[in-house]
């Protein structure tokens, strides 16, 4: 009887303490690019749960029960911020009852806070479509932003999990060295893209365009987040015919129809870009994301040669 009691108490304590063999520091990443960045910086010292996939639109996610359960266990959330997740993350945070990840807590990491925002609207009116007060939230499309965010993320990791501080610092240093070299490589490879006019399906490429000096010639959406009507697409076709862009691009999670319609009408190549880690087979991690993005741009440039 007594041994049974001791066993019960011991079992309860073990359950409460958790399994020591597992990585203790748990991170809830809102988007795959941040999941990949945590892998680079934290290695096996943290376990990462990635809430969304490249096939999903981070604006429109259901606050699913599984997300709430994972957020409950998290020591830290790593999200884009700038209202990108405004439609679901606040509901997940509130229901998770986890003080560590509430807005304002050190464990609530918002990547957009560490970069210079583009497309900050001069006026706020929903008649302008899906506008974000803080600016365009798709900051991950410029690798220089990733580097800035990596620095801030490394400091936050060191702050929250000081026992592995030296490890995080070491990995950050290694990542920056490889990333800096990669940026140089990408910039050299992307030189032929400079100044090229490109049509976009949705306005989520501002940072990529600023980095590679591409020119956004036309957007297939009349306003951000508003699906194009047949009439509007016809208007775009005539605009494109008078000043043809080199290609029309869309993200992996976006509907192919509008850009394929434009291709059928004008022979301008349609290019699907990974947009985030996992968007294409080539974009298996952050390095692959930009390797593949630039490779796809260059391939389309070759096809579209007059």
């Amino acid at each position, binding site marked *: 009887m007594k041994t049974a009691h001791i066993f019960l108490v011991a079992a309860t304590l073990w359950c409460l303490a958790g399994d020591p063999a597992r990585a203790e520091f748990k991170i809830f990443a809102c988007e795959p690019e941040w999941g990949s960045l945590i892998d680079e910086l934290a290695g096996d010292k943290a376990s990462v749960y990635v809430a969304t996939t490249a096939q999903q639109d981070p604006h429109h996610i259901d606050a699913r*029960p*599984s997300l709430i*359960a994972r957020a409950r266990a998290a020591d830290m959330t790593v999200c884009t911020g700038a209202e990108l997740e405004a*439609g679901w993350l606040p509901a*997940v945070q509130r*229901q998770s009852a986890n003080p560590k990840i509430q807005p304002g807590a050190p464990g609530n990491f918002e990547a957009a806070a560490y970069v210079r925002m583009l497309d900050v609207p001069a006026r706020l009116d929903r008649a302008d479509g899906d506008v974000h007060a803080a600016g365009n939230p798709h900051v991950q499309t410029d690798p220089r932003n990733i580097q800035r965010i990596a620095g801030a993320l490394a400091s936050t990791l060191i702050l929250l999990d000081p026992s592995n501080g030296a490890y995080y610092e070491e990995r950050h240093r290694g990542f920056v060295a490889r990333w800096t070299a990669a940026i*140089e490589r990408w910039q050299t490879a992307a030189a032929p893209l400079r100044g090229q006019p490109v049509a976009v399906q949705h306005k989520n490429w501002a940072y990529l365009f600023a980095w590679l000096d591409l020119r956004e010639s036309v957007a297939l959406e009349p306003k951000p987040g508003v699906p194009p009507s047949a009439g509007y697409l016809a208007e775009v076709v005539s605009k494109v015919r008078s000043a043809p862009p080199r290609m029309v691009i869309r993200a992996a999670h976006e509907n192919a129809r509008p850009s394929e319609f434009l291709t059928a009408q004008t022979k301008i190549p349609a290019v699907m870009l990974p947009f985030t880690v996992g968007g294409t087979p080539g974009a298996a991690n952050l390095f692959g994301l930009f390797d593949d993005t630039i490779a796809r741009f260059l391939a389309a440039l070759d096809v579209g040669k007059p």
Partner: protein
Amino acid sequence: MLYHPLFVLGGLMLRHRKIYGAAVLAVGMFAAQSAIAQESDMAAIRRQVEAMKADYESKIRELERRLVKTEATATQAATTAAKNAPAASETKNANSFNPQVSVVLNGGYSHFQDAPAGRARIPGFVSAPEYSLGNRGFSIAESELQFKANVDQVLAGQLTLAVDAANEVEVEEAFIETLALPLGLTAKGGRFLSGIGYLNQKHAHEWEFIDAPLPYVAFLGNQYRDDGVQMRWLAPTDMFLEFGGELFRGNNFPGANSSHGKGAYSTFVHFGDDIGASSSWQGGLSYLRTEARGRDLGSSNDDNSEVFRGFSNLGIASLVYKWAPDGNPTERNLKLSGEYFYQRETGSFDGTPADRDNDGWYLQGVYQFIPQWKAGLRYDRLAADESINPGLAGTALDSRGGTPQRGSALLEYDTSEFGRIRLQYSRDDSMVGEPNNIVRLQYTVILGPHAAHGY
């Protein structure tokens, strides 16, 4: 900030461009002056310009390389600065602390046969006094005004006011909730929508259909809310598992006239998970016990008739399933939901013993077939106890041998996340033997920021 690498690079480029520009200008002027210059001279000049250009480009490349390197080392310092900067500008304005305000507007056109004496009644059920089909023709529905904000580091508060078509203001919700209790606990107090069932804790504008399913109408008077306290605990499991308990004043339907002000309580458990990347589900089991100390049927009778005294025990089983290709609901998505209600009422009706077992359920599906467009179907029905005390024959509790039921079809167009127009047709046989064809066209819009929706 002036020494930021971007500025340094900008300055250098500007300076180099000037030198380069001046060089080109000088070369051009020289060429123009010596119009008789030899071809070989021209070639030499061209070579010189080319060399300068190449030199310039290599310098730019070298600068870019240096910029990337500088940034790598400057990141740490820059991040601290960046993190502090936005906070400083935001705190300038004292109004930043104002609560988040949002408004929901509803309205439209309804067509149906008005019930006799202007009041609908479901045979076999003592429905809530305010149960009605609403106004015929053009009418606004409830307009909602919601304020919410964090009180401090411990609490958040929310107030929801509803103004109906008759200009009456009602405090729909007014509660405080904890932000930072340990161990996955959350406490709530004030007036709020109970956590029982699935649909109950959603505001009416979040419902897929324009009206509440029949079991909600018959057993909860559309939606159960009251003044009280709630405690929830989220289990530390990978699967979502939440337990909750509530204690209420007990004045609202199906309770009434609580003398001691704590006449109702509930317990519930919600659980759910994903099935692959495309599907997810949530289930729930809930129990609500209320006491009615003289609940009358309301409006039409002022005498002391049609009064129920006793207890209501209500159990609810809920299941919700959502599907979207790859879990991306923007193009197409499907939502199926159903709930089963079982109620045991014990007590007396106008002095006659009235112990009864009633049940009811609904099943509904809404499918978004292209962006902005949804279609839906719903079936809901009730079954009142038929083996009632013979003394109750002919009263409101007599089911008249019928089954109250209704079938509805819905077509929805969303102008955006914040606006929608719905057309709903219902074949309503809830009054048994008096089928009613109900057509409603309704708009619902949200002004201002709107809180993220739950599952």
